[in-house]
């Protein structure tokens, strides 16, 4: 790999050491390989929300839709439904899609639309300068919660499992090789896939050391077994200090949502006339 240049002229404005670089470089590598393997570059569409993560739309030289805060998922769904030949990859933040746009995420998982959603889960609002998010641990001291939060985080993977997601996985921004592997598998999965990336915000919530001590790669895990996936997903609840598993927790193919009607040549004017005549 390395022959496909996916860079744009946009100046990268992420902080030095930002976990987003690992996601950017991993996805560029994966897309580069896909393109080299013959997947047409023009059939790739990336969508992003609003937040530090979202700048990725400016940084990758493919079709892109730089959306609104929380509104990555419905856009991905629509693009895929409009043109099923496209490979649609959504990048979203944890505040963005586990908070503002959670409802869309649940429904996309429920419908099993064939899209891939990658969450830059740094567990803090970066671009708005350091507030708690749906996955910040209990007691998180942010600028909107100076005395610490009094609420527990959600476990997004458990939520996704119960919503019907057919592919659920987790990686970190300190482990590009695994991240690339997961991204490729998620992108190739037919159906709704979620990759939760524990992406570190060096400025507002530097968790590199914390994660490094706890993460391990899933081995001998059967992702087709719902109950085993659930148990592994529940091992770390985004709040306790247990070990943190990485890899594919759940993967099961089931029918994907699509608009049932195939394009056919129709004389719309004649059909309109026919429908009107039915009312005469």
């Amino acid at each position, binding site marked *: 790999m390395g022959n496909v240049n996916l860079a744009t002229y946009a100046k990268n404005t992420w902080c030095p050491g930002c976990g987003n670089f690992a996601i950017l470089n991993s996805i560029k590598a994966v897309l580069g390989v896909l393109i080299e393997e013959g997947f047409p570059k023009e059939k790739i569409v990336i969508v992003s929300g609003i937040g530090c993560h979202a700048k990725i739309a*400016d940084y990758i030289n493919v079709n892109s839709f730089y*959306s609104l805060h929380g509104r990555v998922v419905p856009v991905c769904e*629509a693009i895929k439904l409009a043109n099923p030949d496209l490979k649609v990859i959504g990048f979203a933040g944890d505040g963005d899609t586990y908070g503002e746009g959670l*409802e869309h995420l649940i429904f996309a998982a429920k419908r099993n639309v064939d899209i891939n959603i990658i969450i830059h889960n740094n567990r803090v609002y970066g671009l708005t300068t350091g507030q708690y998010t749906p996955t910040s641990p209990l007691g998180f001291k942010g600028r909107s919660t100076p005395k610490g939060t009094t609420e527990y985080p959600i476990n997004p993977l458990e939520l996704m499992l119960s919503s019907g997601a057919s592919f659920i996985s987790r990686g970190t921004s300190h482990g590009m090789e695994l991240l690339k592997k997961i991204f490729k598998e998620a992108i190739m999965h037919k159906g709704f896939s979620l990759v939760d990336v524990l992406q570190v915000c060096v400025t507002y919530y530097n968790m590199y050391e914390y994660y490094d001590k706890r993460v391990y790669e899933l081995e001998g895990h059967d992702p087709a077994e719902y109950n085993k996936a659930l148990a592994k997903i529940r091992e770390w609840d985004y709040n306790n200090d247990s070990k943190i598993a990485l890899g594919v927790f759940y993967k099961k193919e089931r029918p994907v949502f699509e608009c049932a009607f195939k394009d056919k040549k129709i004389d719309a004017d004649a*059909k309109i006339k026919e429908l*009107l005549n039915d009312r005469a």
Partner: protein
Amino acid sequence: MNNFSILIAGKAGDGIDKSSSVIGHILSQLGYRIYIYRDYPSVIRGGHTFSIVRCSPDKIATHLNTIDILLALNQDSIDLHKSRVNDKSLVIYDSTSVKSDRGIGIPIGAIIKELEALDLMRNSCIIGAMCKAIGIEKDTLEKVFRKDISKEIELNLKTAFRGFDDAKEFTKVEKLKHKILPVVTGSEAISLGLIKGGLKAYISYPMTPSSGILHYLAGIAEDFSLKVIHPENEIGVMLMALGFSYAGDRVAVGTSGGGFCLMTEGLSFSAMAELPVVILLGQRPGPSTGLPTYTCQSELNFALSAGHGEFTRFIAAPGDAEEAYYWSAMSMNLAWKYQVPAIILCDKTLNEGAYSFDEDLIREIKYQEPLLWGRVGEYKRYQNTENGISPLVFPSDKEAIIKVNSYEHDEFGVTTEDQNLTITMQDKRLRKSKYLLEELEQYETVKVYGKKDASTAILFWGSNKGPCVEVGEKLGLKVIQPIVFSPFPLKQFKEALKGVKKIICVENNATGQLADFVKFYGINVDKRILKYDGRPFSLDELEQKL
């Protein structure tokens, strides 16, 4: 008798709505022009529901309060509509359950039992009785029943014929030599207009009074290969629409005020990213949940100003089924040509009212391709052009990288905060308004009816067309209807006002939003006739108020 109104009433869930359609179709077979007004509460079963079917030799789009024929399926139908009937009115009622001191009593309840028919078929029985009472032949009744009723048709017909046989002829409606026109609801006219305009996808979350469009399009989706989707909420609706738009599918969404509130962030995005979308905004009384199943015209200001930021938008408010068809198609064309959001202001009266639909009254609509990329040089989604319109191309085009952005962006679509570029791009988007307004001069954006040289004019918009035009013609007044509100065709509007000394503005809202709107352009309205009880003006009511 050739100009009359039939009121059919009963409980919600009794099938009153369907019955009124069947009655409309029957009278339509005799060459009549039909208008159906539907009044129902926000409940699934119970509560009083009624429909008024008005029939006339001339095209109509409003109802009358005075009723010539009352079809009563329960006691409320007699008691609640006393003020609408007079000595000459004919009352047909179910004598099994309803007491009336006059009219034709048919023991409908008993007949249903005897024939082992369904309760819902009481409608068929009373329609049969009505046909006999006003001299409509059995053949006509049967023809319409076979077309309109799919379930248990034989039993329905048997019940209707029994009602027919048990009634007696009271009068004979004239058979007219007019061409038979289809009777369609505003929602159906809008739906077909959107398809005429190239609709590929319709996204909507159910909300009265726009659900009819969703239901109708979902029902005919396969015929036209439409993608009809009902997502999780109206935010999802709007953002999905923008996704379809990006992918090149002509798309529309439908909602009411509350749902539109949720769509406004996406509306603003549509303008910034220049992703065309058509929005059916079905008005109903607010604020907030208001009166969900009733009517009003209180979203003109909202449509004009919804969404943050300053941007070009197209807004049209059609007044009847033909205009609904025409402007739905045109909105689609214009939204794509100028890459702007287009709003069609409609309301419960228009969407759920049924009208005789005359295609011959509709001006030609040509499907217009948007400006497509000529494949010269590197593709720039936001290429800065003289008229502000950038050439379009859609994924997956081999030669183009298509980047759209909610941030201010450069021509390629990459985010910018550059001062000069910000001005350039904002000017580019706003400039489209000027060219859109120029194009609008080709179309009938302001209509004039009534006595063209009268010095007093009725000014109205939207679904008030029916009562305003009819009463204006009757009283010898000029009647003026602005249809497009953004960009506002001021030149055409001033032309329409020539010779007018007194303006009476008629609106279904509490403040007079159109009157205030024209005041901004220096035009003063002399009198405001406002109605905001959730019900549309009837012809007689408006005449009285004038």
